[in-house]
């Protein structure tokens, strides 16, 4: 009998034949990444965590690494200013765009550096942190990222440094990355007692049918405040499948603001680890879909030690024939007593043929805990709409008003004012609310 030869994946073939490998110090991680991917492969149709995510558009063809940097059109460049005053690091098609970045006058204690700038001499901290959190054996898209990424952003905040001005890392995908893969990478480390606000944003050309697989690893040291906003606003043809790891040490306060309104297919696996007593991770998210968009938030919140707090509040607004998934886990490990975990997912279905899935999951292995969860899928309240109209508000205005009010509860939680204002504008545009009075409700 002949032993069957396991065929190589197209990604392994690509890996073996590639010439564009990035800095040499990434070699080890690249190797680990491709091996993990080759062992794992793409998720099968029966894998519970991937059952509702239709990966056919991803697996049906090969998306080779975008090997050159396209030119970002003016409309995209203009959007870099959306978030107001911030330090700015911009990647175009996975590669640093120094001319679009602005890191002048970095505050004391703050490091913001693209990996490519380190040549052969990266800080040990970065080497240790890179890939330390993302589970590439479990998440094949993180494995692909680890195999192929050529650049990324490293943000480090020294012990006790308070950084008020947000740091915006923007990944721009151009039309030249159509049918190609882009692998953005972000590492954020806030050392004990530090405070920092990081915004990671994905935007791109509507013509770019690219596969974007970002991996972001953020770690909040003792007694830190780390505020992370992730704005997934890709072009309509793009697929964005990413992972985010948040880890909080003792007394750390980690806040997440998540917005998903771009791309034809978007999925985020958000892993949150509470690793030190008194830590808290508070994530608020809003997803806004239209047409045939598919957006999927899978969260994995792990209470590993006692006396921690976590909150997940995600709201969806679905228009057209779009489909969304919120699948959220709270896992309380043995011994993690006095855990306080809140999970809430509310969906507002505006499109008659839109479909929202909501699946809360609790796994609790401790007996003195408080875990609450709520999940709803509903439409706008007809009585409320009518009531508003009898006071002179138009039907569209009333719909916009109620929808903005629904979103407002989440948007108000976003701590970075530039993000908050931006999301308000996005909401008003998407909901067709022209009346500034109605927008004021937010």
């Amino acid at each position: 009998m002949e032993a069957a030869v396991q065929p190589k994946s197209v990604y392994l073939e690509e890996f073996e034949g590639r010439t564009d490998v990035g800095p040499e110090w990434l070699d080890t991680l690249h190797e680990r990444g491709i091996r993990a991917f080759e062992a794992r492969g793409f998720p099968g149709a029966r894998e519970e965590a991937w059952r509702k995510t239709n990966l056919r558009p991803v697996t049906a063809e090969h998306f080779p690494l975008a090997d050159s940097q396209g030119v970002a059109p003016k409309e995209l460049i203009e959007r870099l200013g959306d978030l107001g005053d911030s330090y700015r690091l911009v990647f175009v098609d996975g590669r640093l765009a120094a001319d679009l970045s602005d890191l002048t006058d970095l505050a004391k204690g703050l490091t913001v550096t693209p990996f490519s700038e380190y040549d052969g001499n990266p800080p040990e901290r970065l080497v240790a942190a890179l890939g330390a959190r993302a589970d590439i054996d479990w998440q094949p898209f993180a494995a692909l990222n680890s195999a192929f990424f050529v650049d990324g952003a490293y943000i480090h905040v020294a012990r006790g440094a308070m950084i008020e001005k947000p740091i915006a890392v923007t990944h721009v995908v151009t039309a030249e990355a159509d049918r190609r893969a882009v692998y953005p990478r972000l590492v954020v480390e806030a050392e004990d007692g530090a405070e920092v606000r990081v915004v990671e944003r994905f935007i791109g050309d509507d013509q770019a049918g690219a596969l974007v697989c970002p991996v972001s690893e953020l770690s909040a040291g003792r007694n830190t405040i780390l505020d992370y906003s992730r704005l997934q606003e890709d072009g309509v043809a793009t697929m964005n499948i990413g992972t985010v790891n948040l880890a909080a040490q003792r007394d750390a306060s980690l806040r997440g603001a998540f917005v998903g309104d771009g791309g034809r297919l978007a999925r985020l696996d958000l892993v949150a680890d509470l690793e030190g007593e008194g830590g808290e991770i508070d994530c608020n998210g809003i997803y806004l879909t239209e047409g045939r968009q598919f957006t999927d938030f899978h969260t994995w919140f792990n209470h590993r030690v006692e006396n921690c707090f976590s909150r997940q509040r995600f709201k969806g607004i679905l228009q057209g024939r779009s489909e969304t998934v919120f699948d959220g886990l709270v896992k309380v490990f043995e011994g993690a007593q006095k855990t306080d975990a809140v999970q809430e997912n509310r969906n507002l279905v505006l499109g008659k043929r839109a479909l929202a899935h909501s699946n809360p999951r609790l796994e609790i292995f401790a007996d003195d805990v408080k875990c609450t969860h709520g999940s709803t899928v509903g439409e706008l309240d007809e009585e409320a709409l009518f009531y508003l109209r009898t006071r002179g508000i138009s039907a569209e205005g009333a719909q916009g008003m109620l929808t903005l009010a629904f979103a407002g509860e989440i948007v108000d939680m976003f701590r970075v004012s530039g993000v908050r204002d931006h999301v308000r504008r996005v909401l008003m545009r998407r909901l067709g609310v022209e009346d500034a009075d109605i927008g004021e409700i937010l």
Partner: protein
Amino acid sequence: MALLEIRNLHVNVEGAEILKGLDLTIEPGKVHAIMGPNGGGKSTLAKALVGDEAYEITEGEVLFNGQDLLEMDPEERAREGVFLGFQYPVEIPGVSNTYFLKAAVNAMRKHRGEGEIDAMEFLELVKERAKRVKLDETLLQRPVNEGFSGGEKKRNEIFHMSVLEPQLGILDETDSGLDIDALRTVSEGVNAMRAEDRSFLVITHYQRLLDYIVPDVVHVLMDGRIVKTGGKELAKELESKGYEGIDEAAA
């Protein structure tokens, strides 16, 4: 010209005919009261006049200032000057009372071809009108009706009316659930708005509201029709004799 003219109005709710040929004319500056037993069609009339789609008009016409009211969307009716104080005011989570009213005021001004109201002017107006109905100022910033007590909700309806200044104020059982103090305050709010060019249609089950808002005309609505019309003394009569006698008289 009459402000409101209802001719032979028939209205179905979920397939059942509730109003069966109702006629009613209201002249400018007048306060009309509609009384009658539960299920007679009082609230149906109110909802039909403001365009609730659950109330299907099968026959008849309604003219407001000579215009066909039934052709208008609910918001158009409001902008033309029709206001309904709801029997059960709706809670609007996340929408502050003040912002909501500002949007409403500006929608009406736009309809009249006027510019947006000045922010300071609006705030002063809102404060003054809130005081008039003794509406707690903290309720101005709160989401519309959310967490309001029954009495606060009714007060809030009158407050909205006094800010929006309609030509026709329809009050649907505004008195239900109000204690005597609240009843007096709400009534004073309404009375302060009485004017030559403004009319009211006060729908109530009980006579006691009409001690405070004294009507010019009282109608009795039973089984989908106006069966009796009289002056304010009719309300007193109903209070002492009940509706049974009327029913027989009308039959």
